[in-house]
């Protein structure tokens, strides 16, 4: 790539979004891009709208453009192989936001299992080991898949009966609402401890919408990611708890490490940036909001 002179090189960075409508990955990217802006790096962003094929095309285009590093978001790294190989062949390192490790990916963030442990333990406690649970999963990206694995491990052997539904992205809120309606019809009020878990906040919010429409107050809802809408729902009591993950911090960290990555190129030792998770409930909301004012805006 063309590096400008001086001690502050103007890097060229190619960003492959997941989908502009996926809030959490966009938040992480925004933090990354803010830093890039400050440094005066040139950034090119492409939105493949959730399509792996377009993501690969975009990576190839970036190889043509001769960028210094490619940032890929949420797409499982193993499904981006064709793009990652083209990048590696051209000596371009790839940073992945929560796509999982793969050859050629030098930095990854893990938004999977670790972000879910605390909230799922709380869930088990709330249900006291029995009841019916509706879980919304998504198999398009590794974060949800990791969180699902964590949940299944935790509930195995308890008296909790899990109904799992796949929610497509985009369209996750709507799908979750519909599934919840149907599940509620099957689980009328008073039929035991009930809970809904979304692997993403959006799914949890979809469930909240259904609960509100049917005026049901006997179902506990849990979400992960900590979008502002979900945090507000925690505040108002519609959602029992949310696992807030500080993707902005992770995005910043990734940005800070970018020069180093470019320096080392594709030979760099692969590393994982952990994403800090904070459990937010209606009790802890106020103190949380003080600590992370940006998250609740």
């Amino acid at each position: 790539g063309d590096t400008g002179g001086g001690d502050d090189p103007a890097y060229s960075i190619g960003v492959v979004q997941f989908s502009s409508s996926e809030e959490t990955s966009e938040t992480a990217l925004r933090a990354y891009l803010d830093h890039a802006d400050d440094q005066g790096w040139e950034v090119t962003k492409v939105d493949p709208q959730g399509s792996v094929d377009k993501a690969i095309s975009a990576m190839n285009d970036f190889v043509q453009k001769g960028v210094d590093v490619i940032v890929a978001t949420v797409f499982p790294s193993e499904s981006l192989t064709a793009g990652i190989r083209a990048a590696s062949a051209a000596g371009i390192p790839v940073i992945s936001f929560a796509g999982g490790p793969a050859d050629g990916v030098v930095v990854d963030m893990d938004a999977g299992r670790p972000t879910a442990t605390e909230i799922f333990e709380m869930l088990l406690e709330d249900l006291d080991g029995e009841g019916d649970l509706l879980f919304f999963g998504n198999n398009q990206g590794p974060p949800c898949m990791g969180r699902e694995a964590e949940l299944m491990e935790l509930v195995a052997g308890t008296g909790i009966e899990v109904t799992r539904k796949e929610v497509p992205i985009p369209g996750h809120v709507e799908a979750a609402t519909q599934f919840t309606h149907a599940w509620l019809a099957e689980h009328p009020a008073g039929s035991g401890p009930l809970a809904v878990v979304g692997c993403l906040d959006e799914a949890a919010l979809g469930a909240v919408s259904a609960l509100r429409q049917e005026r049901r107050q006997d179902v506990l809802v849990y979400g992960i990611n900590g979008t502002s809408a979900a945090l507000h729902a925690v505040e108002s009591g519609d959602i029992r708890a949310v696992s807030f993950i500080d993707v902005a911090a992770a995005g910043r960290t990734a940005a800070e490490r970018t020069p180093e990555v470019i320096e080392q190129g594709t030979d760099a030792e692969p590393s994982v940036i952990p994403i800090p998770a904070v459990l937010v409930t209606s009790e802890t909301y106020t103190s949380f909001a003080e600590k992370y004012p940006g998250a609740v805006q």
Partner: protein
Amino acid sequence: MTATTIQPALVQQPRSAQLWLLLGRYGALMMLAALVLVMSALKPDTFATGNNVVNILNQSALSAVIAMGLTFTLVTGEFDLSIGNTASLAGVVACTVIVRHDLSIPVAILSGILVGILIGLLNGFVVTVLGVNALVATLGVGTLAVGVNYAIAGGTPVSLSDPDGFLEISLGRFLGIPYPVYIMAGLALLAWVVLNRTVLGRSMQAAGGNATAAELSGIRVDRVRVVGFVICGALAGLTGVLLATRTGSAAVSAGDTYLLAAFAAAFFGSAVLRDGQFHIIGTVIGVITVAVGFNAIALLGMETYWQYFFQGLVLIIGVGVGTVARRRAAK
């Protein structure tokens, strides 16, 4: 001159032909009835309850509104692939108007509908003035709408900080029945009257049947088409707003899933009671059939893939039975 009217040689239709005719007409309805009966027998406590009926109707409401709009364009012989994107954009605009400009809820609703009307006008313009095939035109305009959506909201959901008044539109009830059900019923009645009892509606049907003949009969076919697109857009916009009132926020692609659902309902409906013509009652029945099926699958606790099998089969069988039966009857 009376002798010129030679009465056609008529014979009594055979019994079987009459039965086929009945099946052709009511086949799709019978399928719905069978579904309801089976479910009532299997799950008397959860399916056949007043609550569940209200629940199913409530879930049908939004799909019904957007599908009724689509029915108008289909009746004029056109297509509208932009409705999903229109609904998404309308929701985002309605919420943005409240959040950023601090305007009242009625203004927000109207601005959402206005967005739909504008998109409908644009569709109509591209189709009638530029002469672009409706499929391409509405695909293109829909894509533009997505662009506007991103330009406004940047892809992030727009959430109201104080959503209660807005939510009340979806959550409020009158006599135990949620408002959206009344909206659906009222609009269905209105749409039926417009389509069947006004000059405009009749003109739409004529234009859809044979545009050249309609034009030569003095019907302003292009204008009628544009009106069709505008009604469709307006209802799509309203759907988007209603969708936002369910969550108190609008996501950038919240309405997209309604596109195929609305098409499926309208096409299914074209096989209800009539032979392949689009009409409001059919569309509403189509929407309700899908909702009942979805509800049934959930109550029976079937696997996800059953849901797809069911939807696919409902479409094929519901429409196919009618067509095959009508063919048999004509034999």
